[in-house]
Structure formats: structure tokens, C-alpha cells
């Protein structure tokens, strides 16, 4: 599997990253060498090994449905770049 510079550009867009021409070429090379490494791993026979979904061997970590104290709007909005009426204010997202 070979990633094209166009695919790298697409992934960058999904991650909201703007890449320079030079970066795009460099990341294409780097990502391809990572993928090559995985191709090597894929040669291992893993039939009979259940897929791992978590790095820690734990399951069923729960909390009870008991309310905790929320933040005050003042605290919640403390780092907001912009605010109005106790809300976060962002550029308009509909017409």
C-alpha cells in the first residue's frame, strides 16, 4: 500500500492542518514508511487471537448515575475566546 500526496493532503484537511509543499512530500514519505512497518506486522498469523480493543486488560469500568456538582457558567466560560449570554460565541454556522 502506497499513500499518494493527494491522500496525505486529504488527511491533513480532515485534521484541519495546512501543509506546505515540502511538508506534504516529507509526510508522504514518513507515513509510507510507517505503513510499510505495519505491512510487515501483518505477515504474522493472528488467526485465533481475538482483536484487541484496549491497551489495558480491564473491562466494565462504571460510575453510578449520581449527579456531581457542575461548573458555574463563570468558570466554564473562563477560557472562552468569545462569549455572550453565558454561551460560547462562535462564527455563524448557518446562513
Amino acid at each position, binding site marked *: 500500500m502506497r499513500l499518494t500526496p493527494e491522500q496525505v493532503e486529504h488527511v491533513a484537511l480532515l485534521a484541519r492542518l495546512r501543509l506546505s509543499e515540502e511538508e506534504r512530500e516529507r509526510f508522504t514519505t514518513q507515513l509510507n514508511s510507517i505503513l510499510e512497518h505495519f505491512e510487515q506486522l501483518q505477515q504474522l498469523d493472528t488467526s485465533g487471537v481475538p482483536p484487541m480493543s484496549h491497551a489495558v486488560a480491564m473491562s466494565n469500568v462504571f460510575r*453510578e448515575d449520581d449527579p456531581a456538582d457542575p461548573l458555574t*457558567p463563570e468558570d466554564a466560560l473562563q477560557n472562552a475566546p468569545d462569549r455572550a449570554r453565558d454561551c460560547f460565541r*462562535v*462564527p455563524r454556522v448557518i446562513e
Partner: protein
Amino acid sequence: MAKYRPNIGLEVHAELNTRTKVFCGCPTAVGAQPNTQVCPVCLGFPGVLPVLNRRVVEFALRAALAMNCEIVRPSIFERKGYYYPDLPKNFQISQKRAPLGRKGHLEVTVNGETKRVGIYDVHIEEDAAKLLHPEDDRGHSLVDFNRSGVPLLEIVSDPDMNSAAEAEAYMNAVRDMLLYLGISECRMEQGQLRFEASVSLRPEGESELGTRVEIKNLNSFRAVIGAVGYEIWRQSQALDSGEELVQETRLWDDERGATEPMRTKETAMDYRYFPEPDLTPLEVDDEWIGRIRAELPELAEARRRRLTEQHGLSDYDAGILTGDKVLADLFKATAAEGAPAKAAANWLTGEFLRLLKEGGLAAEQTRLEPKGLAELIGLVEKGAINAPAAKQVFGKLFERGGSPSEIVKELGLAQISDEGEIAGVVDGVIEEHPDAVENFHKGKEQALKFLVGQVMRKTRGRANPQLVNELLRKRIGGG
């Protein structure tokens, strides 16, 4: 006539009515001031740790088992990535590869026929924040994170429905189930139930499904029915004129009553799911499944309680009404037509069951319709007909359906509330029964009843009994 067979699939998103959010302890109360039910977890601050609410799993299991799903073990959470201001982490925690339940089904009834709709999967996810678009600040939107992290249950059906009517029946069945299980309030006006539909058409006789169009922005049953109907029409037109349909996502415009293509975002549909490293897998064991299964029948009990607590019905009435599906549906639909619950329950548990027994009939064999019963109850409440007349009308509704006010006209049952008209009859009765009048003067209350009965007989039961009583007392004294 119908050249094309539609296939409709529905995704239902239901807010679960837990006390706290799915991954943090913030309360979920409706109508709170903006950003008063938020914490670092549901605001998406870096470095915070989500912890799964056990009750969310309980509720989701109830739904999955009620819909006959396989429980997936282990079930895992994943990150679904996209950018929007209502999603502070830039991903939504959801489930895709190993949802809690899959391969289930739900039975729905359309025009008296039962149909099985496949359930593709049932999974847990978190709701997004709410965006407000103020009129007086047209360059900006405001974000209220109270809803961020509220637990959602997503129920994805197979594309098994073949008409808008079947889609409606399915939505009703899902809502009934959620209410019955007590896991969601299902208040659509508050966005607690939201939908997405997929519609494809294939030529009649063809087995392969046609090009699939998804429709978003459906916030009510009415919107779903409208959008599905519109899409079936639009796609038929296109196919008729030999147009190629494109696989796309469209938005429903409630005002125009039409769907339109969504302005394609360049990143649409590329969600890059991957396992959520902050949440451990979910292993539901046999014991847990067994316990939930055992509790499911008891939920009929919960439904009965709702009738007694919310509608003020007696335990007896509620028991009868929830014991029979047809009766339960008739009751619900009659109440939905605006009839007071008590009156509707009285008719259904009283006269209705009596007539069924008398005729040796099953409830679905009668012609009684919720609308007719609701109208009849309205006529009684307005005093347009009295109780005996109402029974006659009910008999007709039971036999052949129709409009109560027309039956009243037809049978000449309208109540006489004209004082002059009743007074004439009262005077006649007093003259004909001097002995009864005398007995009444001697203190025999029974005699008055006798006289009232005579007046009712002369008016064929149509006189307003209260007025008859009043007039009699006035005429013979002692009133």
C-alpha cells in the same frame, strides 16, 4: 400503478432519561440556564477522563433485549471524528464496530397486519451541544453545552419498510417501546427523539435495492412522513424520466415540504472511527442479561403505574387497559384525540367490554374508532346528549363506526335543554299523577324520581335530567 417499490430505513436517536450524562456526573435536567450543567469532561477539555454511566448500559440493554437483539461481547466505544462547534472534542464517542446490540427485530402493525422490521444495530453515544443562532447577532452562533454528553440511544433499522405508513407505524412502535421501558421521555418538541431516514426505489419485481438517499433534519413523525413521501415521489419522477439518481444526503425543509441536497462538505462521511482509548470494553455477562430479561415483563407494571399516576385512572381500569394491546391502543389514541382519560377509560372498560362479551367479539372486530369515541365524549361533556342517548350512539359506533353527531341527528337523540319545552311536559305529568305529587308532599322522595321518570319517558329520554328535576321541584314545591 406502483412501478417502484420503496425501501425505507430509519435511524432513531433517543435521549435516555438518566439523571446524569453518559460520561460525567453533570445533571441532565431540561430547561436549565445555558452552560449550568457542564464540567471539564462534557466541555471537552484536554486530559479529562470519561467514565461510563452504568444506568446508560442498563437502559440500552433493556431496549436491545426488548428488540430481540444479540448482545455483542465485548462491546466497544469508538471516536467518530468531525468538526462542528457543537462538538468540543472534535469527535463524538459512539459505537460502530461492536455496538451493544445487533440483528434484532421489532413487530409493527399496519392496517391490521403485523410486519417484522429488522434492527441492524442498537448503540450508545453522546449527544452534542446545542447551537443558538441569535437574530440580533447574525454573524455568530452561541453554544450551550448543557446537552453535550447527554446519553443517546441510536436504533438503526434495516431498510425493511415499504411505505410512509409503515415508517410511521415503526416510529410509533419504537416510541411505545421506549416509553414502556421507561428509558426515554420521547418529547419530540424538546428534541428527545430525532430521526434520519434512508429511501431507495427499485422497479417492482427487482430484488436488488436502488440508489440510496439519506435524509437528515427530521425532528418529528410528521417531518419523517413528509420527507419519505416526498422522496418517493421525487425519485419516481427521476426514474420515470430516465434520470440517474445519485447517492447523497439531503435535508428536509419543513416549511417548503421538500428535501434538498446538502451542500456537500468536502469532509462528509469521512469519520475515521477508531477505538476510544479512554474507555474500557463493555462485557455484559449472562447474569446481567438474565436479570434485565427477567425485568422486562414487569415493565407492563410500570405502564399500568403510568396510567394511574399520570391519568388518574383506578388500578382496576389501568389493569384492564394494559392487559389487552388493542384496548390499550384504543385508549391511547382516544386520549390523543383530546378526550379526558377517565371518560375514555370508562367507556372502554365498561360499555365496550360489555358489548364485546354480548356479541362474542374480539376488540379488533368492532368498528369503534378513537376519533368517534373522543367526539362522543365531547358531546356528553357539552350536554348535547344525555347518558342513555350516549349509550345508544356508542352502540352504533361499535357496530358501524361513523360520526357521533350525525348518529345523534339520525336517531333524534339531541338533548332537550329548552326550559319552555320541558316545562310543558312537566306540567302534563303533574296533572296526570296527582297521587305521586301528594306522596311527595308527604315527604316521599321516591315520588319525585317517579315523576322524573315519567317526563323522561315522554321525551324518549332526551330531556336534560337536571332541568327536569329543577322544574318539578319548582312546580310542586319543596325545591
